[in-house]
């Protein structure tokens, strides 16, 4: 009895944690300026959110149906693998298509690198 209460508590906490992160990342997409800072909010906080929700689902299935769901574990693994690649590709594509990053005082060292490469090619 006590174990199931503790289990339920953990599941509830994980679900709340996950929804909180997904919600705040959605808020971040609206609030942050520029493509790159928005990508920060869009690609990463949801990873933790989705993972904790999937973990909660896994624990629920295990606790109340005695079912070890391998699919959920695989889903966690593939989210881990695919979401950073997605973020990387989007940011690279944004930079390639000429979107200027939102900068306040810092330099864009990648732009400098690309222009120095271009100069070497022109020589």
């Amino acid at each position: 009895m006590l174990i199931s209460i503790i289990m339920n508590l953990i599941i509830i906490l994980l679900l709340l944690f996950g929804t909180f992160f997904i919600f705040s990342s959605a808020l971040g997409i609206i609030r942050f300026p520029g493509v790159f800072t928005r990508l920060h909010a869009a690609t990463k906080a949801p990873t933790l959110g989705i993972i904790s929700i999937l973990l909660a689902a896994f624990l629920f299935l295990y606790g109340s149906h005695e079912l070890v769901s391998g699919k959920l574990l695989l889903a966690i693994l593939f989210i881990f693998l695919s979401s950073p690649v997605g973020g990387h590709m989007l940011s690279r594509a944004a930079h390639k298509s000429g979107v200027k990053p939102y900068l306040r005082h810092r330099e864009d060292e990648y732009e400098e690198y690309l222009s120095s490469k271009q100069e070497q090619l022109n020589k």
Partner: protein
Amino acid sequence: MTFQIVLNMIIALIWMFLSESYTLITFLFGYIIGILLLTLLHRFLPGKFYIKPVYKIIVLCLIFIRELILSNLEIVKFVYRKKNNFEPGIFALPIEVKKDWEITLLANLITLTPGTLTVAVSEDNTKLFIHAMHIDDIEDSINDIKNTFEKAIMEVTK
């Protein structure tokens, strides 16, 4: 190394036959017994002990999970702050790891920890270009990544 893994599997299988129950749990139990036996006897076998790199990989995963949670909290702080006073910028990170898959792993780990996002890899594979959400000091951020992730990855591949 492969030989040791095969040996460990064989020990687990023998354990399964000895205890006459052919389930996953018996196999895992036998595997653990095999690991214990190999810890005692690995100096008589050719090659390095294969648990060591596995242990390093587990350490890498733990570091990664800690960083993931800590820096997610960081970004959530940025979301709920009234004024956006962060300093985004793209900086170059010189990397020491050479192999393709090491660079891929490093780039993915950097991307998954919020606050940093890998934008590109330079053509000669010596630099990563990282977009950071908030840079106090470029040197600090570079040292941070170098001391945690790159060190852990190099430990695994060493």
